[in-house]
């Protein structure tokens, strides 16, 4: 974002008042931590409710007679087959099946969908979608919303206390409970939780209630990252890039069998070729031995010192109490139990390939 003006959250004053420390992320000035600190914020989310301002992420409404067809072209997704209020995790792929962004698409109406894009990719996503949309009868509308994530075992109860009925909403479903609101049961922590896009005025009113609830505490971007990493969830730009494809990323579960064999989405042919010959490398969980974290960008070698892969996300898992990482390993090595070595400032740290997630998911499924 060099040369661009740093963007500020509409609710920045609330974060300042809460004592947040800010840092730059994807062109935005974001709260990284609050006075409680990343450890406590992380654990509070797993035990109670973490409140995250994710207004850096972008919501797009896609509507019109060609909306489903556009999404089926832009994403490996049978958008017409989604039920009302059903959400799906999907991607924008390039022609080589490289992942341009990972997204959540929710069907809101017969000819109406909402798409949630990552902050760093939002502008590129919009340009891409508009380019693909030529010839489709659709309207693409970026929504001006505050976007909040309410995550943790008491999320439903806390929302209910704040006057938002969330009990009937199932995991990976989204609805419009009020004018210009979009609420989905989803998140990026591995916990039960909700994401709500809403006008700033409504957000301030809702937060007024939520923050009076002692179960609810602000959580910054630092703990958002440690929570998602423990949950084995990918961060685009690190674990997923235009150079990785859904097969090597272990995300083919997000693409139906029918679409894998006969889909006409962008990148379909390339993905079929990759699936036919097998991915060269696979995304894996990595558990460093000892207490020293292994960070993104670290090279992995096998027992003989030969290149074996790389770390794409790494840090410390406050809930599991040890360092956690994920990355890519050469396909023949990419099995739980394989020991590799991470080159950290000249020392070889043993790391073991493990199944993801590090902490079990606690999603509320129907």
């Amino acid at each position: 974002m060099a040369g661009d003006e740093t963007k500020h959250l509409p609710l920045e004053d609330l974060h300042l008042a809460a004592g947040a420390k800010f840092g730059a992320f994807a062109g935005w000035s974001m709260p990284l931590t609050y006075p409680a600190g990343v450890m406590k914020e992380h654990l509070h989310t797993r035990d109670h409710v973490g409140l995250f301002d994710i207004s850096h992420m972008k919501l797009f409404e896609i509507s019109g007679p060609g909306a489903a067809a556009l999404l089926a072209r832009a994403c490996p997704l049978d958008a017409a087959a989604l039920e009302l209020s059903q959400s799906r995790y999907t991607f924008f792929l390039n022609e080589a099946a490289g992942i341009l962004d990972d997204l959540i698409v929710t069907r809101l109406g017969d000819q109406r969908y909402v798409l949630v894009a990552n902050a760093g990719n939002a502008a590129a996503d919009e340009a891409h979608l508009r380019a693909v949309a030529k010839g489709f009868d659709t309207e693409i509308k970026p929504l001006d919303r505050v976007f909040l994530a309410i995550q943790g075992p008491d999320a439903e109860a806390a929302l209910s206390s704040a006057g938002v009925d969330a009990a009937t909403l199932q995991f990976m479903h989204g609805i419009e409970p009020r004018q210009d609101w979009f609420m989905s049961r989803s998140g990026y922590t591995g916990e039960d939780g909700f994401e709500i896009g809403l006008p700033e005025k409504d957000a301030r009113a809702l937060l007024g209630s939520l923050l009076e609830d002692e179960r609810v505490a602000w959580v910054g971007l630092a703990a958002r990252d440690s929570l998602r990493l423990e949950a084995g969830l990918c961060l685009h730009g690190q674990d997923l890039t235009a150079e990785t494809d859904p097969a090597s990323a272990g995300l083919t579960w997000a693409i139906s069998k029918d679409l894998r064999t006969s889909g006409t989405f962008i990148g379909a042919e390339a993905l079929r070729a990759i699936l036919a010959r097998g991915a060269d490398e696979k995304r894996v969980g990595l558990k460093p031995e000892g207490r020293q974290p292994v960070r993104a960008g670290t090279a992995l070698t096998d027992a003989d010192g030969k290149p074996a892969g790389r770390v794409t996300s790494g840090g410390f898992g406050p809930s599991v109490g040890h360092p956690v990482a994920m990355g890519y390993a050469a396909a023949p090595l990419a099995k739980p139990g394989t020991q590799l070595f991470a080159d950290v400032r000249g020392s070889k740290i043993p790391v073991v390939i493990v199944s993801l997630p590090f902490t079990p998911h606690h999603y509320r499924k129907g």
Partner: protein
Amino acid sequence: MAKTYFTEDHEWLSVEGGVATVGITDYAQEQLGDLVFVELPDAGKKLAKGDTAVVVESVKAASDVYAPVDGEITEANGALSSDPALVNTAATGDGWLWKMKLADESQLDGLMDEAAYKAHIG
């Protein structure tokens, strides 16, 4: 009587008998956040001013701590191996990082006293 000095990189040195105990300031630990690992140096290691002496790792990132003066490591704080959070809870006490024998005590002249450091961090 030990004398305490501060650096612009937010380290403190408590000097007595030609040996400095070095740590990071409370301001620095607050900026770093919860520490989860401290990579400690071996005794006997010779450092020049500006060399990386210790790496402190928070949940999110690794940061170097530099030798504020020339010297030789005499001891690292082994308690940090099992409890790195001591740096957060007692940055200027039990959370010290290493001790070093000073090679040139005149280098201390360029460092700040507590009042100057407080002005430095504002």
